[in-house]
């Protein structure tokens, strides 16, 4: 599955593509929502590993505008619930992710992102 937490961790790795290769742009995506177990401690810990603008942008591309432009200083339960939903409950099942730099297309099929490169694209 490609949750937005996963999307936030994937970058283009084609040969020579080392800058502006993140975040991958979402295209023609089909989304499913599935409940996940809420854990406030995990979210508080994980926030330091998130590229925030990329997450906010990806969520907005999928029609979820619940996250602020900057993570708030006070991480109350209301905010953490929204973050939980965006990070862990939105699953991209079909579609593609496109590199903003080299336009390489990484398809998503049955919830599995295909990040393989052809022989000549491997760095």
């Amino acid at each position, binding site marked *: *599955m490609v949750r937005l937490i996963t999307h*936030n961790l994937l970058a283009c790795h084609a040969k020579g593509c080392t800058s502006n290769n993140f975040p991958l742009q979402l295209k023609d995506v089909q989304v499913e929502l599935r409940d996940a177990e809420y854990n406030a401690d995990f979210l508080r810990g*994980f926030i330091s590993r998130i590229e925030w603008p990329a997450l906010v942008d990806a969520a907005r591309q999928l029609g979820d505008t619940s996250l602020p432009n900057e993570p708030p200083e006070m991480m109350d339960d209301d905010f953490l619930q929204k973050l939980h939903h965006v990070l862990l409950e939105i699953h991209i099942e079909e579609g593609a992710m496109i590199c903003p730099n080299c336009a390489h297309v990484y398809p998503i099929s049955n*919830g*599995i992102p295909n990040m*393989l*490169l052809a022989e000549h694209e*491997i760095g």
Partner: protein
Amino acid sequence: MIPTPDLSHLSRGDYDHVYEPAEDTFLLLDALEQDATELLRSRPLICLEIGSGSGCVSSFHSFSNYPPVYISTDINLHACRCTRRTGLQNKIPIDSILTSLTGALMHRLSHAVDVLLFNPPYVPTYSDEADDAQHDAGIAGAWAGGADGMQITNTVLQQVEPTADQSVQSLLSPTGRFYLVAVKENDVPGIRQRMLDEHRLQSQIVLQRRAGREHLFVVRFSRG
């Protein structure tokens, strides 16, 4: 005791394409169980398994109060599908990614992996055989290891922790732990010495066991 993951959803047909859990898999599970208390105490955020195959190992952990993100990679699409299904079967959300080793993750997982798991293709074969097996992305890629069985493992070892040249990206977080399965033919003392000399990583043999012709090891690396 942490229960062995339920694999009843996988069939013979799946194991035509994907490595069926065997003694090496179970030794890694036993090692993780032995370390479970310490692993839980370290409050891991990101677990990455390279070459997840059936998904048996990624579905095993039980950090019940503090579930991390489980990311798995495999170059074999059948394996990615099996991993995903095994995660669902065992109610563990695994993000299964079709890629070679850590491709597409190195950039963002730099110094971010808290638990890294790798049960590599460790069987010594001709070098070409290991290359072909990775290229074909089928079941042989799960065992054909090339020279000393180390061809694929060596690539991953270079990614775990940088050498003196800090421009090299690395995976382990400051408190990260790396569990590697190996056999005697891989020269376990040699691997440990090299990781200490070149990457300043301490290591311990968590478990070792003889299974048929194989003398299996699970080695744990960390910053000590």
